[in-house]
């Protein structure tokens, strides 16, 4: 930090034992704050790199970009215990490697996926955790405590409740975080599962990434609630609304729900208000440009989570203005970014994952008929 770049800030507030923090972020260190920014860069870089690879025709299937929604993932995952469970869905690919990432991105012991595993999945290689049997985000790992999703939205919430219930029977209090879009809140299983979790006060936190669009359907045609978190009232559980562009606000609200859950008080819904940067999937980019107005898209993307995080860090004195300007990934379309817009460590982490995937073989064809049933106990 260059002393001239910004006025000297006080050291982070240290709470005395008798003091109760007002916000979860108050207990984060400067290193934590900088790590949050780095993870935002990482999530963004993963996405823009894949968008570019996809445009070059190097990837199969549909890419559901998480561009502009990274703060929801980074902010919600950062405060979890390594042994907590998550269930990401299609727009949450970075969650697989961000889980427990604060214990070291490259740490093989951490309870999250390596970038090599995630890239192997994207490139359809046998080294994918699911040996590339189902596409893109439909991976998971019992060992890494990531529930495998299907394409049926909200479908992992009851599974999350079941995992939480089994864990409670075993004497644990692991929290299970499920990811859903605002469109998922209209599913019957959303109701059934949260109702059940609320009856039994299970530690299930339902994140609703409200990006305003369920494929081609706007929020007002999916939900009568302006805040979909209001659905929580029907279950007598907390319904929190977070600014999904602000990683610290997401962190605060999710931690509030997580601590509530871990203390045995039951589930919560945390709505993170955000905006989908592109089409539903990359196949939808052109049409999305027509069914959404240019003004709405510009307005929805005007609050880039990386830029907002930088403002926090500069204001707190954890980053100089000069440092903040060094890597300018924010406020750019994916195709406008270059590797120079990201910290070298972020670029090398992802590049290593891609290299590993490219060097790995595809699964042998005969595996298509395998693992329908488990033969032995």
């Amino acid at each position, binding site marked *: 930090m260059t002393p001239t770049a910004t006025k000297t800030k006080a050291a982070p507030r240290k709470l005395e034992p008798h003091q109760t923090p007002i916000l979860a972020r108050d207990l984060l260190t400067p290193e934590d704050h900088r790590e949050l920014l780095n993870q935002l860069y990482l999530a963004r870089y993963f996405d823009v790199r894949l968008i570019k690879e996809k445009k070059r025709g190097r990837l199969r299937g549909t890419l559901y970009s998480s561009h502009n929604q990274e703060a929801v993932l980074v902010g919600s995952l950062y405060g979890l215990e390594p042994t907590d469970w998550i269930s990401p869905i299609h727009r949450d690919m970075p969650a697989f490697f961000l889980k427990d990432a604060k214990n070291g991105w490259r740490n093989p012991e951490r309870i999250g996926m390596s970038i090599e595993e995630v890239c192997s999945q994207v490139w359809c290689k046998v080294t994918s*955790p*699911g*040996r590339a*049997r*189902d596409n893109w985000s*439909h991976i*998971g*790992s*019992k*060992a890494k405590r990531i*529930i*495998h999703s*299907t*394409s*049926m939205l909200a*479908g*992992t*919430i*009851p*599974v*999350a*409740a*079941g*995992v*939480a*219930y*089994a*864990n409670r*029977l*075993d004497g644990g209090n692991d929290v299970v975080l499920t990811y859903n879009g605002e469109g998922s809140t209209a599913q*019957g*299983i959303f109701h*059934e*599962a949260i*109702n*059940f979790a609320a*009856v039994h006060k299970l530690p299930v936190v339902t994140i609703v990434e409200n990006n305003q669009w369920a494929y081609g359907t706007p929020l007002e045609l999916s939900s009568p609630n302006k805040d979909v978190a209001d659905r929580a009232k029907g279950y007598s559980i907390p319904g929190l609304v977070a600014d999904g562009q602000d990683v610290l606000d997401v962190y605060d609200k999710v931690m509030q729900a997580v601590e509530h859950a871990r203390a045995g008080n039951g589930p919560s819904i945390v709505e993170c208000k955000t905006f989908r940067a592109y089409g539903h999937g990359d196949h939808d980019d052109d049409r999305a440009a027509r069914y959404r107005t240019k003004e709405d898209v510009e307005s929805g993307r005007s609050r880039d989570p990386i830029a907002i995080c930088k403002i926090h860090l500069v204001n707190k004195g954890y980053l100089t203005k000069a440092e903040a300007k060094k890597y300018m990934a924010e406020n750019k379309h994916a195709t406008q970014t270059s590797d120079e817009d990201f910290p070298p460590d972020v670029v090398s982490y992802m590049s290593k994952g891609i290299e590993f995937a490219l060097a790995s073989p595809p699964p042998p064809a005969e*595996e298509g008929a*395998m*693992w*329908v*049933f*488990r033969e*032995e*106990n």
Partner: protein
Amino acid sequence: MAATLDPVTTKTNYLNALKSAIDEEMGRNPDMICLGEDIGILGGAFGVTEGLQAKYGTHRVMDMPISEAAIVGVSCGAALGGKTVMAEMQFIDFISCGFDQIVNMTATYHYRTAGEVNIPMVIRGPAGGYGGGALYHSQMNEAWFANSPGLKIVCPSTPSDAKGLMISALRDPNPVLFYEIKELYRKREIEEELNAGDDAIVPLGKARIAREGADVTLVTYGQNVWHCLEAADNLAKEGYSAEVIDIRTLVPLDEETIIASLQKTNRLVVVNEAPMTCGFAGEILARMTTKAFRYLDAPPARVTRLDTPVPWVKPLELHVLPSVEKITETALQTIRF
């Protein structure tokens, strides 16, 4: 001959056979739990789980909200979390409310994780017609699930098979759909003495020859086994001996036992109370037509429900379901072809 105990006191009905299997497995496997509507306080709509909550606690025998999809999804999650789960559908008809969680979430879990995860889970419930249950309490909808890879499907017709197959299902590492025939639950005529311990186990995927015969093979399962046995009596009066095969497990299907029978009888009639089109009877016919064609001396036939729902009042219901008369008549046509 020495005096024996009154045999009635040692015989068990189909329902109690199921209960004893679940009870024994709950006792044997501390990681097993039961979920379902009204299974705890009430003991189940039919009483299959009566007494289990008092014995094993509310945390292991749990009353669920009227949420079949959540029952299945939560069971799947609990299995992912290391439990063995018995999930009850109050009527098997209600299973349609949990369809997605069964066929997309649970059935595919092992497949899509390349074997990392397996889901030891039994979804069981009362099934079948002939009882005046009308459209939504009479279904045999097993074909929906036979068409969904990753699910085993079981349907016993006797108390000893009910117990033996339930034990196997609860010890199987895969999701198993268990069709219980509610008309057989308390049927006195079929009560029988049950084996204890491991001798009670009936493996999945093995058919049972319910009656030996030489002139025609009647392949069936569930309640229709008893109809076929009656039809076999009728055929005997006509001078023909029918072999009755109770497949007991639909998935996996014991094809060998059926083929071996056809080598002997050369004639096949499949009987099943589900609707005809894309029903499991059609699957058996298709497989035997391709795999045992050389043994067949007559076109194989099937007796199924008409392609209708199951109506309420008795004359209508019996009109659409397979009857002893229809089975007898079809078998005679096949024999005399």
